[in-house]
């Protein structure tokens, strides 16, 4: 599974933090191109395979919100 995150909206540290939280459920590989950060996900746990992508995206977004609050303050 490949999930691409636009550099405009998603931060690399937020993605890395989320990968650290999800590392027990799959194996991850990060690649970068000009516009996007691409996360390759393999060996996803069968129990969570259906919702993995969506939950992972939500988790990254929550990390982004926390980070943006820090910047504001």
């Amino acid at each position, binding site marked *: 599974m490949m999930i691409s995150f*636009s550099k*405009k*909206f*998603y931060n690399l540290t937020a993605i890395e933090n989320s990968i650290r939280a999800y590392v027990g459920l799959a194996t991850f590989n990060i690649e970068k191109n000009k*516009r996007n950060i691409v996360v390759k996900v393999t060996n996803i746990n069968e129990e969570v395979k259906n919702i993995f992508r*969506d*939950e992972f*995206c*939500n988790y990254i*977004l*929550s990390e*982004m*919100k926390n980070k*943006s609050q820090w910047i*504001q303050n």
Partner: protein
Amino acid sequence: MKKKENKIIISVDPKLYSLEAVYGAAYAFLDKAYIYLEEGFKSKIQVSLKGKEKLTKKSLETLKGEFLNELLNFSLRDKISKSNRKIREYIIGRALASALPNSGKLMEKREETLRRKPLDKADAWDKETLTEEFEKALSWEKDPEGIAVTWEEKHLCLDKKSSKQEKEEFIKEPDWGKESEEIVIPWKKEDQKQEKCKKNKKKKSTKKNIKKN
């Protein structure tokens, strides 16, 4: 809208809504839907909302409406927080500075810096009113209503004119070990003096009378 995928896509103009507002609204919707942000056409922000459970067309529309409302709410909050930022920092700075032990000097320094580099014109009114309030609060040292007067000064008439020695004597605890010595209460001292004077006068007058006789 993609009903088969249980998804609805909203494009947000970054000129109208800030990215912070989008993050805020998305964060508020994390428990209701799966959210994914993409770069859309003409550098618009494309927000895709996917229901966590199967949703009908109507409920997807209501989800969209709620998200847009939340977006508006967060953009307003963002604007207000930005406009009030300086005054917030001023209040917090003032409160923290007053809590420090040598706050007086720090306050003076702060005042000086503010004089040199004043707040924005928009904040000027708030600053004036705030400084007035602070000055009022700091005028307790003048004590016009006599709140800071000690109990001894108020009730025992140890006014400012009474000597230091008298005050110290009053504050000093009597030596309870010496039972034989009389414990003289300081505010009764004057009465005793006056009585002594009267006695002496009486004695003198009786002596004079005796001499005359």
